[in-house]
């Protein structure tokens, strides 16, 4: 007689258990109640006892997963007993179980579900993608980006004929570029195509994800290739460079953009040229005229009936009063106050904290008296 021993149901939620250890060996004589194996369920380690006296036949190896209810050992009355027929039946049953398990296993994945979703969303035929391993999200995204790089113009024109977001190229890859990009993010009125800077150490580096692609004179080549619509100069410290770049490319009639923060207040009857960068909380009062290529830091108030010419830079917190006239290429520090009617001559430098009450001649350097020590503190009480 051959007795079939099956994996018992220990946890109602379990389907497969693992035989972790055989405690007896093949053909060993066991008595009913002897522990013969240890199995691991999802919740606990359980010892299996022999249900009959007899000689043990092991049907699985240690470490194998066996289905609950499956026959995993046979106990036969005598050593010589022929159990081939029984073994045959048992093997049939095991084969069926194994087949079931294989069918349960997922067919080999070609791609992640995320990749499938993105492919559908962007109209990419995922079956046409040749790949060595699993097709992943990044594969789809890079494919989409590559495709868009090639056909951007056509794509944009097809979708929005006549009125599409202008592509802007930023000249100057220093901190000014960060400010310009940040302002563009806030208003989203341009599409940034890249940054140029003369410092070769910066080539390939990125600001907010946008790469510095080459030296500033690459502008002409890019303009010929129609890779951008407008320019903006982000340089703020070197006024001469700023003015010079502007003059250079104006010769080729390349348009410059005004990049203006969304919370800037521009009042009635104001004229603004091109290439101006105006940061947040600035104000341009009524009937003022702003030229081109000026750099306004935050909180600059150009009051009413002012005239600002070209290529000047303003530090944060500058306040003009009415009828102020500022010439070309004037550099202002921070916290400068200008009384009404004052004329500031071109190419001047006005230091931080200055209060201008009289006209300033061209090419002047105006310094204010600051950091005046009154006396030393003797005793600290």
């Amino acid at each position, binding site marked *: 007689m051959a007795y079939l021993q099956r994996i018992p149901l220990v946890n109602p*939620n379990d389907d497969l258990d693992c035989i972790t250890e055989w405690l007896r060996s093949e053909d060993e004589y066991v008595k009913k109640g002897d522990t013969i194996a240890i199995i691991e369920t999802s919740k606990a380690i359980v010892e299996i006892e022999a249900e009959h006296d007899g000689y043990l036949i092991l049907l699985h190896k240690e470490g194998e997963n066996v289905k609950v209810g499956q026959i995993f050992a046979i106990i036969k009355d005598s050593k010589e007993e022929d159990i081939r027929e029984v073994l045959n039946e048992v093997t049939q049953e095991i084969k069926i179980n194994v087949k079931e398990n294989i069918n349960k296993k997922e067919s080999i994945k070609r791609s*992640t*579900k995320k990749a499938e979703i993105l492919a559908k969303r962007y109209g990419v035929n995922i079956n046409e993608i040749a790949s060595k391993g699993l097709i992943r999200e990044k594969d789809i995204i890079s494919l989409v980006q590559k495709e868009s790089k090639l056909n951007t113009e056509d794509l944009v024109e097809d979708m929005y004929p006549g009125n599409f977001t202008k592509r802007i190229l930023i000249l100057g890859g220093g901190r000014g570029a960060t400010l310009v990009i940040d302002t563009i993010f806030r208003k989203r009125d341009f599409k940034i195509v890249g940054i140029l800077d003369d410092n070769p150490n910066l080539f390939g580096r990125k600001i907010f994800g946008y790469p510095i692609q080459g030296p500033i004179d690459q502008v002409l080549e890019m303009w010929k290739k129609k890779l951008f619509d407008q320019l903006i100069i982000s340089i703020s410290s070197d006024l001469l460079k700023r003015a010079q770049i502007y003059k250079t490319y104006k010769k080729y009639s390349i348009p410059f953009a005004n990049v203006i923060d969304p919370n800037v207040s521009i009042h009635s009857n104001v004229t603004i040229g091109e290439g101006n960068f105006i940061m947040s909380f600035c104000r341009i009062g009524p009937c003022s005229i702003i030229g081109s290529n000026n750099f306004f830091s935050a909180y600059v108030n150009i009051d009413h009936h002012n005239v600002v010419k070209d290529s000047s830079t303003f530090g944060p917190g500058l306040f003009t009063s009415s009828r102020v006239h500022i010439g070309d290429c004037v550099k202002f520090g921070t916290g400068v106050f200008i009384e009404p009617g004052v004329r500031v001559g071109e190419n001047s430098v006005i230091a931080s904290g200055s209060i201008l009450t009289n006209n300033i001649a061209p090419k002047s350097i105006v310094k204010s008296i600051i950091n005046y020590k009154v006396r030393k503190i003797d005793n600290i009480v």
Partner: protein
Amino acid sequence: MQTYLKSLNQALKDLLRNNKDVYLLGEDIIDPYGGAFKVTKGLSTDFPNRVFPTPISEAAIVGIATGMAMRGLKPIIEIMFGDFIMLAADQIINHAAKFNKMYSGKVKVPLVIRTPMGGGRGYGPTHSQSLEKFFLGVPGLSVVSPSHFHNPGNILKYAVLEDNNPVLFIENKRLYATNLLVKDKFPIKISNEINSNSYPIIIARNYEDEKITPDIILITYGGMSLLIENIMEKMFNEEIRILAILPSLLSKFPIKIMKQIIEGCENVLIIEEGTEGFNWGAEIESLFYENFGNNYLKIRRVAAIATVIPAARHLENVVLPSVESIEHTILEVLS
């Protein structure tokens, strides 16, 4: 590694030891039986004058505990199966939940009713339900349901010692034997805990960088955390980024806090084991639309089909939410 059950058992032990006003009442809770789900095992032996077995009188048990709470004690009662809570519905809704406000705030009812809800064991239509939805929206009643992402013992202690409202503390049968997900378990990262001093809300992600917007947000509670753990692992392999929000307090939802958590992601899936229609998910979904109403919010709910929960396992799997049904809905939302 502590199981959900052990955490509760230990918490009850600590409560009995450290607070002389805590008393336990329930059917079959004394040793050697120690409760139908063994949550109270060992307690009557250690604290013989504090643990009382009761006759089969759910309504009276809840009422008696209400009276005890009104007179300054801190009773914790066990209703053996969540399905039986309906026998005590009048006591909970018309008495325990109302005394404080009805008596203009002069009487407190610090009562805790613990009960296991949930199916998945083939116990059939009257022993597998999740009925907490019928007690949501009862003014004056806190409904709490910790998952295995939480520490249920700590939450129980808070409910008993700090919450002066009567508390319906919903446990889950499938969670009892589950190990608590204490810290990160790849690929799941438990990134923060809101309200950690009272009823914590767990935020978990199946991706590393918190700054990346998830693809979909799952909001759920209680026993569904088992499915969520499974789903998050599965979806990790499919590169679908999930942010899971698991509150422990069901009767209030801090929708304003959700704003910065869900920033940027517009797909939300709300999952619960109770039946579909007029449920917890309906309230959460309304709160989202009312507070963040925009055209891009895509919210779906997954719940049990509105029928009896069959005893036959393969039918039960179809009625209750499953890993498959949740996965299917996620893919539907994202496509």
